[in-house]
């Protein structure tokens, strides 16, 4: 929560964000900027007119009920889905120009884990983007993949068929694959899904390390209890954006109730 300490004025959103990561000129550095984003799968939009700014260097949670559009938001930012309106920019440029700066950890259930391959191979996929077309991964890429496996504590499983990994281990493989990308912004869709307490701590430590290295990390998160402990920034989402800002300022009963519909009492104290 170090970055929280230098926030002087929490009343104005602009001034708040400015203190997060201002360059010498005093201007805010926005890692991600989403303007008027509207996304629909069928006719009814699942995301409505989203405006969102993610300052550089934050560790942000995106919270909201099932079906709120959290995964959809990430997919739209990453260009996997085409929005029906609105735009997204990464460091001021459209996503397709900034790919090398962005890494993605999809929801674990989005792939078939019975695919015939081993853990190391999946992690290597993180290097494919920088390799580009046709070029094969070599010694350098393998080394990077092994390092990432080591970081998530999965080195002993490098040659394990991926269907024979536990859910938490599969999650760590996905995390390692994103780490290999060596990006500036990380989008993670429920990286804590189905992991035990030890793994959760291991993962959050990695995320905090990323933040310390100046990276921006955006995480879809379901466990409201741990939001204040893990994250310094939060976005409430339920089809529309309810609120976004420092956890310290906006993580309260009011926003939770607006997002989750029910009268929510945060049992967590700040």
């Amino acid at each position: 929560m170090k970055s929280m300490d230098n926030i002087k004025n929490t009343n104005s959103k602009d001034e708040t964000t400015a203190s997060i990561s201002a360059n010498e000129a005093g201007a805010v550095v926005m890692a991600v900027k989403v303007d008027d984003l509207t996304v629909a799968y069928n006719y009814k939009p699942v995301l409505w007119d989203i405006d969102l700014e993610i300052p550089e260097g934050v560790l942000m949670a995106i919270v909201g009920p099932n079906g709120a559009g959290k995964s959809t938001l990430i997919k739209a930012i990453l260009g996997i889905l085409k929005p029906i309106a609105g735009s997204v920019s990464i460091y001021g440029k459209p996503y397709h120009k900034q790919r090398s700066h962005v890494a993605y950890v999809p929801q674990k259930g989005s792939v078939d884990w019975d695919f015939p391959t081993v853990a190391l191979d999946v992690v290597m996929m993180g290097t494919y983007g920088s390799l580009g077309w046709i070029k094969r991964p070599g010694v350098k890429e393998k080394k990077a993949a092994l390092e990432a496996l080591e970081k998530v504590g999965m080195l002993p499983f490098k040659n394990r068929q991926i269907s024979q990994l536990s859910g938490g281990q599969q999650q760590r493989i996905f995390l390692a694959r994103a780490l290999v990308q060596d990006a500036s912004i990380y989008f993670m869709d429920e990286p804590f899904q189905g992991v035990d307490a030890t793994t959760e701590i291991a993962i959050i430590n990695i995320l905090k390390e990323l933040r310390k290295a100046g990276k921006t990390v955006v995480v879809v998160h379901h466990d409201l209890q741990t939001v204040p402990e893990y994250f310094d920034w939060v976005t409430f989402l339920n089809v529309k954006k309810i609120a976004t800002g420092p956890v310290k300022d906006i993580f309260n009963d009011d926003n939770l109730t607006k997002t989750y519909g029910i009268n929510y009492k945060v049992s967590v104290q700040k």
Partner: protein
Amino acid sequence: MNLQDYFSLVFSDYTLRTITFGTAILGAVTGMLGSFAVLRKQSLLGDAISHAALPGIALAFLITGAKDTNTLLLGALVSGLVGTFWIRGIVTKTHLKSDTALGLILSLFFGFGMLLLTFIQKQPNANQAGLDKYLFGQAATLVESDVWLMAIVTGICLIVMLLFWKEFKLLLFDPDYTKTLGFNTKFIDILITTFIVLAIVLGLQTVGVVLMSAMLLAPAAAARQWTNSLGTMVFLAAIFGAFSGVFGTAISASQDNLSTGPVIVIVASVFVIFSFVFSPGRGLLFRQIRFIKNRRDLEFQKTLAFMYHIAETHEDISHPHTIKILNNFQGFTRKTLQKLADKNYVTLDGAMWSLTEEGFETAANLYNQNFKKHE
């Protein structure tokens, strides 16, 4: 002709050699590409493509009046591609599920194709007979130029596959992620699909519209059972496909009346059944064996643990007890007891048993070991 005659003839008889080569190459290329279809869960795609090719054959005949294979297959290719990309369009533009789209296109094109075939058959044209061979295929009509065409397409397919191996693998495993890395997934997808269409069209003459999809799926499904590596799977599928082609041709050539296409498909299916039962990793048989073995091990350990608890209560761990005590305990069998004795964990003396020093140690460590194993 029996099978032996076949294998001695295959090197001298020109026709037989041509057919054998043709079916082998066909089996290899469909097996290879079939792996991609199976892993993308597009098992129905092959069926839809081959059925979609039928009206193309009929139309090509109607337009050109020629019955030469290449013209007809070109027609098949065009209508196969149209059908395939129509399916893609339906899936991306509407919210129909892909199997619905596949089924729709399959029936629509096949129905139209059959209509055209009936129409052609009614025409007073001496040239029309034999178009229906594309329904079930007729390997006997393969000539050398057909085989060359197959070989060239297979060669190109192989080169493209090796070139884009990394991209193919990535797309097969995680299409969304592939997109975020900046690869044009549409291009990779079209590349794979086009080759699948090509392979299917090449097989129409030999195996026919109706059974073609089995050539695509069977070798790949069999290969999946034996390996956990994509490369090995594709390679094995090609081998299985080629063997199905050769054996199918051999069997049908040695039994005068059997048509080659269906026999090839049956041989390929035998590969599938065999693989599903006997493959070591995923096969039913080995799974059953593993299950029984695990249960035995468990019985063995449970009995030992039970004995340990009894022996524990005595000063002298090797104090003899009656075997009858063990009857209270459910996991116990005579066989387990004998096995414990064989391992020197217990000594048996008539109706009495006693734990040995070694048995006691092992039993004491049982739980620890189990615990460690699961860590």
